[in-house]
């Protein structure tokens, strides 16, 4: 037994990987759909978006890549559904070079479901290099930062961009971000200086880092990781049905989180148990 516990503590990490793979795959094959609550920070985000009057304009900075897709894309989708449903005009841009082929088709797809017209109800400004400098520039002068949209139309000819000079001209800014440049950079560079109404959807790892911003009122809402996305889905689609026939991707993945977390907890627990037993014997 003692030998086993010693070996258990130094086991080949490939066994750990195998266990993790099983913990991920099993709930995907046999979902058990457990109910979950909505966090105060996600509720605040949803409520603020829900209060927007029709015709308001919202800037969505979609800064994520395929790696963080499972965590953040469900929020991005649900948020676009929510905004279009409320007849809010949407301006999407990105500061991640690998994001446009990911975020633009989703925008077009959801706009199509609600019969929205490009240029009048929504626009995709495309990608801008420069990260933090680009954010600073968005705070100061959007037409100069994005002189045209992704199709090459000058912004002054796009009705939804009429009169937009800088970030403060938007009713809200939603940053869907999985890292840098993202929410922290928006807060540091322009949220404080121009007193912007900013919300964030981010990865589970970055979530705790942004809680201080939420507590300080620098973010009006925060949806962190897959649970955050699932909770926003729950609020946006209370009947569980997505217009256009899509799936609630984050909600469906909550089972994976359940088992994955339990697996890591079990590893830590047994690891410590073995550690204490073998330490006493030593």
């Amino acid at each position: 037994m003692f030998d086993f516990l010693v070996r258990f503590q130094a086991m080949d990490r490939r066994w750990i990987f195998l266990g993790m793979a099983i913990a991920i795959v099993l709930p995907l094959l046999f979902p058990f759909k457990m109910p979950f609550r909505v966090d105060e920070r996600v509720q605040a985000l949803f409520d603020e978006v829900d209060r927007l009057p029709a015709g308001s304009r919202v800037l969505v900075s979609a800064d994520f890549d395929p790696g963080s897709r499972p965590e953040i894309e469900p929020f991005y989708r649900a948020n676009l559904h929510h905004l279009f449903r409320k007849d809010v005009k949407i301006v999407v841009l990105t500061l991640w070079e690998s994001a446009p082929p990911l975020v633009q088709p989703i925008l077009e797809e959801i706009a199509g479901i609600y019969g929205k017209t490009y240029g009048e109800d929504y626009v995709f400004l495309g990608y801008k290099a420069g990260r933090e400098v680009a954010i600073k520039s968005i705070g100061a002068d959007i037409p100069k930062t994005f002189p045209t949209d992704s199709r090459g139309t000058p912004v002054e000819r796009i009705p939804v961009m009429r009169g937009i000079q800088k970030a403060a001209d938007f009713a809200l800014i939603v940053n869907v971000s999985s890292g840098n440049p993202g929410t922290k950079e928006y807060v540091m560079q322009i949220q404080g200086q121009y007193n912007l109404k900013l919300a964030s959807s981010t990865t589970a790892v970055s979530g705790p880092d942004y809680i201080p911003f939420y507590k300080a009122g620098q973010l009006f809402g925060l949806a962190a990781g897959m649970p955050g996305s699932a909770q926003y889905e729950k609020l946006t689609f209370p009947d569980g049905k997505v217009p256009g026939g899509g799936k609630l991707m984050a909600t469906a993945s909550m089972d994976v989180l359940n088992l994955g977390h339990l697996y890591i907890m079990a590893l830590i627990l047994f690891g410590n148990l073995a550690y204490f037993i073998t330490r006493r014997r030593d």
Partner: protein
Amino acid sequence: MNTARARNCARCLGAALLLLGPVATAAPPTDLRSEAPIYGGGLEMILSWTPPPDDLIGYMLLRGPTASGPWKAIEPIASDAIRHKARVVSDPRREAVPETVFFRLVALRADSPIPALVPGEASDAAAAESEARYVDSLLATGDVSAPVESRTRAYLVNLTPSRVMLALIIIAAGVLIGVFTRAARRGAELYIRRIPGIDAIEEGIGRATEMGRPVLYVPGIGELQEMQTIAAMLILGQVSKKVAEYQADMIVSCCIPIVREVADEVVKAGFYQAGYPDAYKPANTRFISSDQFAFTAGTNGIVLREKPATNLYLGMFFAESLILAETGFLNKSIQIAGTAEATQLPFFVTACDYTLIGEELYAVSAYLSRDPRLVSSLKSSDYIKVFCVVMLIIGTVAASLGNPLISTLFRIAE
């Protein structure tokens, strides 16, 4: 007649007119006023108004050079707004900033005209014509306020309390650096606490030399203008000197092209200063990919193929931190990490031998060089930190007692 009764009468009149036939119910916003804020810099005016009594879907702001136009629709405003920051020119680089400008506010209702989309390939004249048609249709609704004259005023200096406070902190930091530098030059000993992580950098370079393997330096995935990347470049300067002195090899793996260019110059200068310019190998400072995970895969490839004895991860890191550090752990490298990204600290602490937390990253170059000018700047930032802690405590107590003075001093929002 009080206001509420007046509004009710106006509503009755509107309803009566509707019943009579297709006559527009003109109920414009009233009492439009404007003032020039300090932070507007002569380009922005604060407009305020009294909204019309009925439900709106929003407003459209018009701007013109005279009280009689010509008018240009500049931006829509949310229906619940009663105050708005408006620009006096669209682009100060193309248009002269006028001394006086006029604004009008149009109340938008469900049946208000909507602007037409002008395609990118249309001529400027066609776009201007479409714009003029839209403004005419707005003015025809009658839901438009009287013009308000706005005198622009460009303040030269912003002397609001928060800005004065900020200026004082910057000046104090400068003065403190000067005072400590003088003291250090006169021979005063400036104490810096021992930071084991930084001491381990030199040990790591020595280990690499003994094993005949390279040192891997990863300056994070931040752009050059990020302070953490700048700190990483400053440390690289010191590290490359040590590597050259030990006559070891160093591979620098970069995620951002411009960071590679600067890193290359820094390493070259380090080898030159150490007296070993010939040992410098430009091919060892590599740009891998600007995509986060392609960069991670490439850097892990270096770890597995070239088997560095020491891995230094100093700079801005995100999800790649644990993937890099675990691969380094598998390779049995000595690993020293440093980042100000709080989210990544747990990963580095778990998988690396030493981790520099937050501000320690910014202290490394001063610690390694012991240059009195740099050490004095560390000292001055410590004093500023003490000041901030004192202000935080006083501010917390004051805010809890309902006094907003301290928080006003530190609020920089415009």
